[in-house]
């Protein structure tokens, strides 16, 4: 039989499709992430003194806390689904490049966090009475830009921690310090937009997010093979 090594993007998308299909079938993790998001919105609401803090000042923090922790739920599942039957061995034995595996997992994780965000962003806007209509596109842009950075680092760490003891504990411990330079500018930019500042004012934050995405996408792709047996 003629062997034709599949292209990087085609293999990556096949892996993404497979991961999302598994997630769609079992739905357990995405449902818990969404439930977590809604619970968090509720708890923040009752811990909040509306006479002291305006909702536009609270909402950005609530949003990014939810995005961060619900994202972690999905990241842990990412390489976790490969473990019970050692499907990862079959994946690594296939003639696809390691960068395709990393990219495929990354895109699936991105899809996962986008679903959670697509539910929690309007939920926060609605329940906290923050009208986001005027700047919804720039806001979505910032959320996506930040999400790419979060999953780029998180996917790599997910690959590492699955083969260690303490996997569930280690992932947030390793990943959260790396999330800070993403969440900080993203939350600041969100706050500016919600306070009615012009979009031009957040360009500095956007450049930090963009630079983070580029640097960590490249470096994590290069480092991914080192998280596997060699």
């Amino acid at each position, binding site marked *: *039989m*003629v*062997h*034709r*090594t*599949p292209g990087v993007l*085609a*293999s990556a998308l*096949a892996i993404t499709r*497979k991961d999302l*299909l*598994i997630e769609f*079938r*079992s739905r357990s993790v995405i449902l818990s992430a969404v439930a977590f998001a809604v619970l968090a919105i509720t708890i923040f609401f009752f811990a909040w003194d509306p006479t002291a803090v305006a909702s536009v000042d609270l909402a950005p923090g609530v949003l990014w806390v939810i995005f961060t922790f619900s994202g972690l739920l999905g990241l842990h599942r990412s390489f976790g*689904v490969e473990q*019970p*039957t*050692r*499907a990862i*061995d*079959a*994946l*690594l*034995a*296939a*003639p*696809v*490049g390691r960068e395709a595996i990393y990219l495929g997992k990354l895109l699936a994780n991105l899809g996962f966090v986008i679903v959670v965000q697509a539910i929690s962003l309007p939920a926060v806007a609605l329940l906290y009475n923050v009208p986001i209509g005027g700047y919804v596109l720039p806001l979505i842009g910032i959320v996506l830009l930040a999400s790419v950075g979060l999953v780029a680092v998180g996917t790599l760490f997910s690959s590492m921690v699955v083969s260690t003891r303490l996997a569930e504990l280690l992932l947030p411990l390793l990943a959260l310090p790396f999330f800070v330079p993403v969440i900080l500018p993203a939350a600041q930019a969100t706050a500016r937009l919600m306070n009615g500042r012009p979009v031009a004012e957040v360009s500095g934050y956007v450049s930090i997010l963009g630079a983070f995405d580029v640097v960590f996408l490249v470096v994590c792709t290069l480092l991914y093979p080192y998280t596997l*047996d*060699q």
Partner: protein
Amino acid sequence: MTLAPAEGFSVTATDLVRSFGSRRAVNGVSLSLAPGDCLALFGPNGAGKTTLLRMLGGLLRPTSGQATIEGVALPGGAEVRARVGLVSHQTMLYDALTARENVEFAARMYGVADVRQATQRVLQRLGADSFADVRVQSLSRGMQQRVSVARAIVHEPSVLLADEPFTGLDAGGASALTGMLAGLRDSGAAIIIVTHNLDEALSLCTAAAIMRDGRFVRLDSTPIPARDEYTALYRELSVDAS
């Protein structure tokens, strides 16, 4: 089985070594298999059998020595991995997907030209088409192993590496698996099978080796000694030698 140049052989290895730290898991293994050869690999746990298979499958880099798969030297990256199929006691399947989805996914990973057709063909060949659209989690262990073999051969590999494939199968499942592997062997694939199941392996294979401390301590090609004689040999070589 003799040492010979790589041409015409499906698998060759010359003084293959793999170290983990200062421990040599595989310590100088040489072998060669022609198309249609089947090597049964016996040995106690920790003898280096799995490490040897993982090297030949392109999953681990040899520390020293040479190996080839169809004339391509290891580690040959994707080119080598495309020619190898992998089966183990772990099914390497996704429980939430159906048998067909699992095999189709594997076919995509190997760049098989017509994914649907190749999947249908291999499921039929292994008698798995009746439960092709059932999720793997609801299949019996024997059915799962069938799907697992289908997944491993959908790209028609010329070398099949099987790591303890009989573990967890009942007698019926084991002989069905032997039948499938015999079919592959007869169609020209070279097979290396690591197992503790002497009955199935000896009925299937054209050669047998006993591995201990990273080396072959005995290597027999056809005719392999009779089963009872070989069992005694295996006991002696793998249990008492320390």
